[in-house]
């Protein structure tokens, strides 16, 4: 029978978990989270610079390209703690863009871009289109050779995370009948190519990207022979990091709910003494622990053929269920205050909705798992 994953935890993960726990708590109190929600850029450049200096962007980049040469699973504890503190910024987008280049970039692209990303330049991926398909190979945007060494792009990408902060955008296109990826230097985009979208998670920045009229040199194409494998890799990498961010968020929202359950008094008792409140919080906690076990199994097994995919899809499916439930109950258990904008429960609930919407929700991954397991 197919192996479906097991827990492992490296020393590097331990060190990163410890430093990320302290750092994220320190730089991302909820007052700061809320202040950044109305900021156009959406994150604190000083914090972003510190993250670059800490080397976290370099974790999963090979040493030959200026990175630390660790595994993507070693990034999981860092992203988990970011999710726990609702820390905004292009960390995940940049890490995924680097993964795309590592998996499918040309040698020249890797040499020019990866060291920059390792140091703290931001980049992102443009993979989603109006068809709203979680299958990344369903692409309408196109890249046509113009006969003089350039590619003419067309089509529109949506939900491009962090495009405002990014120096590069890697977009999926159809190139000569096959899915392909192109590395776009953002400076080369015409004015108005990016439109900021209104999205459910207000801490996040997402954009629609119009490719019509954009041209790039042919050298911007990632290795066409590896495009399909690269898209598959990005899909799993994105789900692994989403699961990490969601597990952290689940812990954050449970802690937030617990604070209120211990201090809000009704009928002469803290509401957490009532089992109608207490028991669902325990149920949320148990789901959280289970989701976290799946996360660290996926992080450990990520690079194993077959097992990595199963463990990652399981981790995302479980994180979706855990986060959604914990945040949903958090709104309810805050009563009238829970219905307000000022209550932080909505921040977590909206983040959970965002994550379910990207790269596949629980039902999507369950269907995939059925195909893999049954």
């Amino acid at each position, binding site marked *: 029978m197919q192996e479906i994953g097991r827990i492992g935890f490296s020393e590097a993960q331990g060190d990163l978990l410890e430093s990320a726990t302290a750092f994220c708590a320190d730089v991302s109190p909820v007052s700061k989270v809320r202040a950044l929600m109305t900021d156009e850029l959406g994150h604190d450049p000083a914090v972003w610079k510190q993250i670059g200096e800490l080397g976290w962007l370099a974790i999963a980049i090979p040493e030959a390209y200026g990175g630390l040469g660790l595994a993507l699973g070693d990034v999981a504890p860092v992203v988990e703690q970011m999710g726990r503190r609702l820390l905004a910024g292009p960390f995940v987008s940049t890490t995924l863009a680097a993964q795309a280049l590592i998996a499918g970039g040309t040698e020249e692209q890797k040499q020019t871009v990866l060291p920059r990303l390792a140091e703290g330049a931001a980049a992102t991926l443009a993979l989603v289109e109006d068809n709203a398909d979680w299958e990344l190979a369903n692409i309408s945007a196109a890249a046509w050779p113009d006969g003089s060494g350039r590619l003419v792009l067309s089509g529109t990408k949506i939900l491009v995370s962090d495009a405002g902060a990014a120096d590069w955008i890697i977009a999926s296109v159809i190139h000569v009948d096959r899915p392909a990826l192109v590395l776009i230097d953002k400076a080369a985009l015409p004015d108005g190519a990016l439109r900021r979208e209104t999205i459910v998670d207000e801490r996040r920045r997402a954009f629609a990207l119009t490719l019509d009229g954009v041209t790039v040199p042919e050298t911007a194409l990632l290795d066409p022979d590896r495009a399909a494998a690269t898209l598959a890799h990005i899909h799993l990498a994105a789900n692994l990091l989403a699961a990490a961010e969601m597990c952290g968020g689940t812990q954050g929202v449970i802690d937030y709910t617990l604070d209120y359950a*211990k201090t809000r008094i009704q009928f002469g008792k803290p509401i957490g003494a009532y089992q109608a409140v207490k028991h669902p919080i325990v149920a949320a906690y148990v789901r959280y622990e289970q989701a976290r076990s799946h996360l660290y*199994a996926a992080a450990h097994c990520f690079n194993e053929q077959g097992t990595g995919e199963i463990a990652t899809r399981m981790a995302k499916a479980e994180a979706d269920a855990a986060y959604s439930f914990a945040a949903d109950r958090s709104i309810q258990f805050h009563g009238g205050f829970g219905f307000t904008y000022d209550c932080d429960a909505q921040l977590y609930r909206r983040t959970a909705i965002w994550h379910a919407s990207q790269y596949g929700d629980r039902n999507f991954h369950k269907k995939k798992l059925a195909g893999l397991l049954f």
Partner: protein
Amino acid sequence: MTAADPKDLAEFAADADAWFAANVVADPGFMLPLTFMEVGTDRQFDFLREWQFKVHAAGYLGAAWPKAYGGGGLSQEFQNAATAAMRRHNGPIMLNAIGLNWTGPLLLDMGSEEHRLKYLKRILSAEDIWCQGFSEPENGSDLGNAQTRAVRDGDDYILNGSKIWTTLGGYADYMILLCRTDPNAARKYDGLSFILTPMKAPGVTTTPIRKLTGEHGFTQTFFADARAPVSGRMGEEGEGWKVAMRTLEYERSVRGGQAGGYVSVQADAWEVLELARRMKRGDAPALADPAIESQMVDFILEIQSLALCRQRMAVAPLNADHPHGLALSSKLMTTEFARRINEFAISLTGPKAAYYVGDPNAVDDGIWTRAYLNAFSATIGGGTTQIQHNIVGEHVLGLPKS
């Protein structure tokens, strides 16, 4: 205890594997209980007692307990290897669960040398069967309110009152008894004492109780001027609650040190998957029904959750926020899972879910229905699911008492 020498361990594991391969009886010719709480006939009891005796004599039970008390004097890895071999070959359950898993580690932890020498070896060999006298007809979840009386009379206590739901009560040689020595204590918890009590003694009687499956399981146990020696008391008078709470930590596997083996057949989502392939809806496997497929994936996700949480318990940095969180939640997670997956399995059998154990048309001899009904033994026994929620809420998450 010494660290395992990997070579010896590998050899030991291979020997254990061979031993269980040779000694497990696949079909004794009658139905074996799925858990130690379901031993309903003398035939089952005799068979399981004999089996445990054999396993211990071969060195595959209590391997990590000290030699002086009948154990193997090895490290825990050795017992784990033996238990794994037992599981691989579907060995029958260990009968003397209350002795092996809670009384034994409790005696090792806080018993006197005299207690250990007297009881431990005979627990391992199943020569002495143990039962637990905590619940009473009027006091179950509210265990601290137990009222069975113990009055000091020289070197004995004189016992009066009744315990109920006593698993293996009719067979037991000894009971771990929680009783009231001081009815006037300011706090109800402070009037309790914990006594190792002989069961085959004048004044102790048991009456069998039929469980929901129709078979006999546990008993009601009556004490009418029965005597238990004072030397069997654990802790001081009035410290019974503390000892009982420690016992429950062993019972719920919050603490380690159990003799090994297993005392119930685990619910297995992979076997249910096989059932979902075998059962039909029209000409197609039940699993082809999208609703069934979806539920099946949920159960696979959940059984993998349980396996991974067990593994993660050993990784300290991943338990930093709630060091006992996984241990204190594990009873809740596993027992409810077992109940729900067996319920799902019944539904897979379609119209034949109507059959019960004993009918030739029953799917798999009716095991799914039997397993579902018996699964409540664990969602109720040892502290109900609702009480487990309270425990996790209060002791892990710090919520106020209900």
